[in-house]
């Protein structure tokens, strides 16, 4: 027994310190890789465009430069950025509300009731869930174009509300985590089927409602291709698409744009930060339950 454990310790030590050193280096390199761009971005918004190029990348600029960048960003095309953020909020929140109203009952029905074509709908949900959402963007455009919905907020809100992944998460939750005896007991006590859902199942499903809300909100807010295709006019852009207008007005990347309404590099950096703030907040505050949710059923990008 002692020889065995000695032998074991020796072997572990052999791969031990050199292996650990390599592992440590790998971890560190990737920490730098993932973190440096974000950290740099936060410093960049506090600098003037000259300081951005000449100063140490990780030196703090000044408050005055930050406000100058802020004013330039929100003064761009008479406050277009504010409109875009408002649009993003409208689309993401609108899609979120419809998604919840549609997906939670659907997941419940798939898990706990019986109806014709239930299996077909379940398989269809899985298949569509695994298709990248961008694959359907042009087909949906062609479809909505014939109905004349292009340019309307509905042309992005409705497709964003079709969220099979949310239905699937809800379905998994209801079929594995809700005690059936509880539902039967409610039925015996005289609850109608509708009341079983609203009074018993729905309160139990609060965590999954939050999870579906999170994934849908992040996906809608970050969506680029769909609004880019559906919304031709700048008034209707969400902020993600608005960024392309800002980019087009940045002389550093597009020399032909040097004019009165041009955007400097730190302002463009600030726009990037502003465009992700809501999602970043949601990420920071929901980290823990998010991780458990992602590992519960796998996820789609």
């Amino acid at each position: 027994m002692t020889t065995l454990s000695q032998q074991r310790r020796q072997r572990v030590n052999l791969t031990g310190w050199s292996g650990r050193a390599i592992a440590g280096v790998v971890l560190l390199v990737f920490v730098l890789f993932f973190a440096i761009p974000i950290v740099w971005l936060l410093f960049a918004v506090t600098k003037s465009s000259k300081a951005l190029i000449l100063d140490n990348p990780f030196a703090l600029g000044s408050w005055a430069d930050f406000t100058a960048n802020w004013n330039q960003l929100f003064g761009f095309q008479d406050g277009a950025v504010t409109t875009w953020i408002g649009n993003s909020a409208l689309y993401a929140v609108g899609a979120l509300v419809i998604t919840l109203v549609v997906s939670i009952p659907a997941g419940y029905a798939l898990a706990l009731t019986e109806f014709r074509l239930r299996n077909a709908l379940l398989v269809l949900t899985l298949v569509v869930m695994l298709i990248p959402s961008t694959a359907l963007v042009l087909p949906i455009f062609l479809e909505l174009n014939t109905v004349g919905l292009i340019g309307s907020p509905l042309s992005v809100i409705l497709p964003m509300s079709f969220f099979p992944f949310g239905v699937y998460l809800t379905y998994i939750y209801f079929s594995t985590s809700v005690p059936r005896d509880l539902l039967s007991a409610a039925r015996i006590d005289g609850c109608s089927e509708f009341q079983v859902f609203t009074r018993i199942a729905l309160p139990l499903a609060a965590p999954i409602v939050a999870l579906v809300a999170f994934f849908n909100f992040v996906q809608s807010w970050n969506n680029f291709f769909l609004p880019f295709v559906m919304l031709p006019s700048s008034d209707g852009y969400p902020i993600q698409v608005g960024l392309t207008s800002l980019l087009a007005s940045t002389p550093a990347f597009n020399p032909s744009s040097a004019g009165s309404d041009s955007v400097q590099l730190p302002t463009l950096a600030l726009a990037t930060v502003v465009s992700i703030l809501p999602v970043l907040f949601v990420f920071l505050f929901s980290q823990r339950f998010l991780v458990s949710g992602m590992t519960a059923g796998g996820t789609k990008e």
Partner: protein
Amino acid sequence: MTLARQGDTLTAGARERRRAAAREGRAPGRTRIGYLFVSLYAFLTLAFGIAPAVYSVVLAFTNADGGFAGLDNFSKVVTDFRFWPAVLHVTAYLVIWLIGLLIFVVALALIVHALSVRWASTSLRFVYYLPGALAGASSVLLWLFVLDPTASPVSGLLRAMGFTSFVQVIQPGNLPAIFAIIAFWTGAGGWIVIMYGALNNISTEVIEAARIDGANAVQTALRIQLPMLRKWIAYMGVMSLAAGTQLFVEPQLLSQASNAIVPNDYSLNQLAYQYAFQQNDFNGAAAISLLLLVVALLLSWVFVTRGGLFEREE
């Protein structure tokens, strides 16, 4: 994984299913409430899942006047001088991205999982995951800065590699690697978290047994953990492959930021977009979209029916 119950497998007969329904406490028989609850979702599925797919099939096989066109649209897009370069671009990007993703995600998940210090493992996962908040245009914009040697936080590194200007960095030969790096930066963290969760599901007894048999950390990782992760690795591979064929926002923004040094028909989705919006050729656009959709559908279908991740392990 108990992700779907036995009663849900495709092969189960109707009677068996009904019995399973009763056993599991689903509402007995067909109740109206089921139809009511599922109606809105069924409507959205029809409107934004099935109908667009069917309509693009119709468009792809007809001409601008609505007459049947056979395979004309397909032969038109396939012989387009921009088509094969786009296929090549997307393929090169996919190869680099998938290899990088498979190696680094699995390696990082294994290393992070092996850490015994709890806070280190938690905060590492968080740092890796955080860039996921920057998807779409935001992440591409950020990487424009990182890749521009005049402003970049890693300009020293770029110069050491021989790049002194943004134009040099975005030479055509570098683009697949650049897009792969951007995609890895935003997406890898989520997969690391998923792999980490899958590693947590491997019972400690198995690992302990391996250790008692004299396996060191590397051997345990290669011979025990890696084979047990196989399903999840396959899941990641298939999902990423499907998503990667859709490449759009990265080349689109880079094209805009480079004064069209990067062409605006670099990827297949961009080419479909050009067909629809520059040439007003919806039939051609539908043909390309359909090709991409079929690839995605095939991958997804194979995975749902064969992958085993969504079925109960016997």
